[in-house]
C-alpha cells in the first residue's frame, strides 16, 4: 500500500537523527516525528538543545555548541531524503502490522501514520523536584534551562540542585553571570566526571551544600529564597537565592509505549542484548529511551545506527524493503 511507509522514527536527538541518516541513505525514506518546540529537553534535537559546549563528541577538536551539532545531524539526514514532521507523537498501536503512530496538536485532530518498521528514539527528560512552588515559579526564578535563563541572574546569588555532569556544567556556566552559585547535592560525593568536578572545585564562585535537599521555594511571583534540609542532621536552613536551576537526573520518555512494549527497570525500554530489537516485531529502540547506563550523545548515535541497520535487515528479510536495497545496503 502506498501510504504505508518503510520506517517511522519517533524522536530527533542523536539517536533518532543517526537512525535517520542511515535509513535515508538506505533509501528507506524515513519519516521523523521530531517533536514540538519546548523549553525542556522534550523538543526537536533533544537534550543537547539545552547545552552549550559539547567537548566530548569525537571529530570536533575545539568542541561544538549542542544546538549546532544537532542542526548538522538534521541537515545530514535531510540531504539523503529524510522527511520531518514537527509534531509530537500522541499515541501508538503496535498490536498489528502495519504499525500505527498518531501525531497531532492538543487542539486539533490527530493524524494517523503507518509503517512496517518503527524506530523509537524518544530519549529522556529532566526530572523536576516535585515541589508545589516549583510549578508556579517556573520561569520566575526556577529554571530548567541554564543557557536560556542564566543571563537574567547577572550579579545574583543562585543555586543548582544535583551532583551529576549536567548539574556541574550548569553551575560552571552560570558563574559567568551570577555572583555566587550554591550546588545542593543529596550525597557527599558527586556522580559527575572528574574533569567537571575539578572545574567546579576550582571555581571561586561555586560552593557546595552536601547531604542536602531542597524542601521548599519561597517567593510570590519570583524566587526569594529556598529551604534546604541536611538529611543527616535534619536541620533546615533558609538560603537566600533568587534563582534555582534543577539538574537532578532524567527519566525515559516511554509513557507512550507503556501498554505496547516491554519496559525494563525504571521505565526504560527493554532491548534484546547486543541489538535494538524490542519485544515487538518491527519495533526497534535506541538512545536514552533504552539506555540507563551510558546516556551520551555518542552512545545514542551508536545505538541509533544499530536500530537503522536492524530495521533495514528486518525489512529486507520480510521483503518490504525497496528493490534496490541490496545495492545500497553495502554502502554503510
Amino acid at each position, binding site marked *: 500500500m502506498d501510504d504505508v511507509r518503510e520506517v517511522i522514527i519517533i524522536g530527533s536527538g542523536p539517536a533518532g537523527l543517526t537512525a535517520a541518516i542511515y535509513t535515508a541513505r538506505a533509501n528507506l525514506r524515513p519519516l521523523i516525528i521530531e517533536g514540538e518546540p519546548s523549553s525542556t529537553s522534550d523538543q526537536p534535537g533533544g537534550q543537547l538543545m539545552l547545552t552549550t559546549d559539547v567537548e566530548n563528541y569525537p571529530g570536533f577538536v575545539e568542541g561544538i555548541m549542542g544546538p549546532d551539532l544537532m542542526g548538522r545531524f538534521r541537515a545530514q539526514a535531510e540531504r539523503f531524503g529524510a522527511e520531518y514532521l514537527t509534531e509530537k507523537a500522541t499515541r501508538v498501536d503496535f498490536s498489528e502490522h502495519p504499525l500505527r503512530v498518531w501525531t497531532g496538536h492538543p487542539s486539533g485532530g490527530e493524524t494517523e501514520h503507518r509503517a512496517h518498521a518503527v524506530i523509537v528514539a524518544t530519549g529522556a527528560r529532566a526530572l523536576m523536584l516535585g515541589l508545589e512552588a516549583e510549578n508556579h515559579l*517556573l*520561569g520566575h526564578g526556577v529554571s530548567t534551562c541554564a543557557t536560556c535563563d542564566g543571563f537574567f541572574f547577572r550579579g545574583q546569588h543562585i543555586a543548582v540542585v544535583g551532583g551529576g555532569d549536567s548539574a556541574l556544567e550548569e553551575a560552571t556556566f552560570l558563574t559567568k553571570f551570577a555572583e555566587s552559585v550554591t550546588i545542593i547535592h543529596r550525597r557527599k560525593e558527586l556522580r559527575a566526571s572528574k574533569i567537571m568536578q575539578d572545574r567546579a572545585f576550582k571555581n571561586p564562585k561555586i560552593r557546595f551544600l552536601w547531604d542536602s535537599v531542597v524542601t521548599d521555594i519561597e517567593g510570590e511571583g519570583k524566587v526569594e529564597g529556598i529551604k534546604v534540609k541536611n538529611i543527616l542532621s535534619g536541620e533546615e536552613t533558609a538560603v537566600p537565592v533568587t534563582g534555582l536551576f534543577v539538574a537532578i537526573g532524567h527519566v525515559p520518555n516511554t509513557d507512550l509505549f507503556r501498554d505496547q512494549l516491554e519496559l525494563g527497570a525504571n521505565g526504560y525500554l527493554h532491548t534484546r542484548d547486543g541489538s535494538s530489537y524490542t519485544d515487538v516485531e518491527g519495533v526497534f529502540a535506541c538512545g536514552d529511551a533504552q539506555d540507563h547506563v551510558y546516556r551520551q550523545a555518542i552512545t545514542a548515535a551508536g545505538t541509533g545506527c544499530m536500530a537503522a541497520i536492524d530495521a533495514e535487515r528486518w525489512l529486507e528479510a520480510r521483503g518490504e524493503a525497496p528493490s534496490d536495497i541490496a545495492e545500497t545496503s553495502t554502502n554503510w
Partner: protein
Amino acid sequence: MAQSIVTLTDSTFDEEIKGSDEPVLVDFWAEWCGPCKMIAPVLEEIADDSVGKLRVGKINVDENLELARRFEVMSIPTLILFKDGEPQHRIIGAKGKGQLLQEIEAFL
C-alpha cells in the same frame, strides 16, 4: 524574518505598542537561546497568517535589557500579548504553533 514582524527596542516600544490598533504578541529572545530559535519560524508563520488581526514584535533582550526588566522577564523565550497598550497574557517557554494559537485565541 517575515515582513510582518516588527523589531522593537527600548526607544520604539511604547510608541509601537500604544499606537497599534491590533493586539501585539511580543517575543523576548536572544541569539544564544536555543528554544528561542526553535520558535522563530513558528512566530513568522503566525505573523504571516494573522495580518490585520495580530502583529508580532521581537525584542532582543541583550540589546534591550530595560524592557526585559520592566516586564520582569526572567526566562526566554517569553511571549507577552499586549492589547490596547496593556499586557494581557504571558507565555513562558517555547511551545508549538497549535498550543500558542490556542493560548492567544481568546485575546484576538
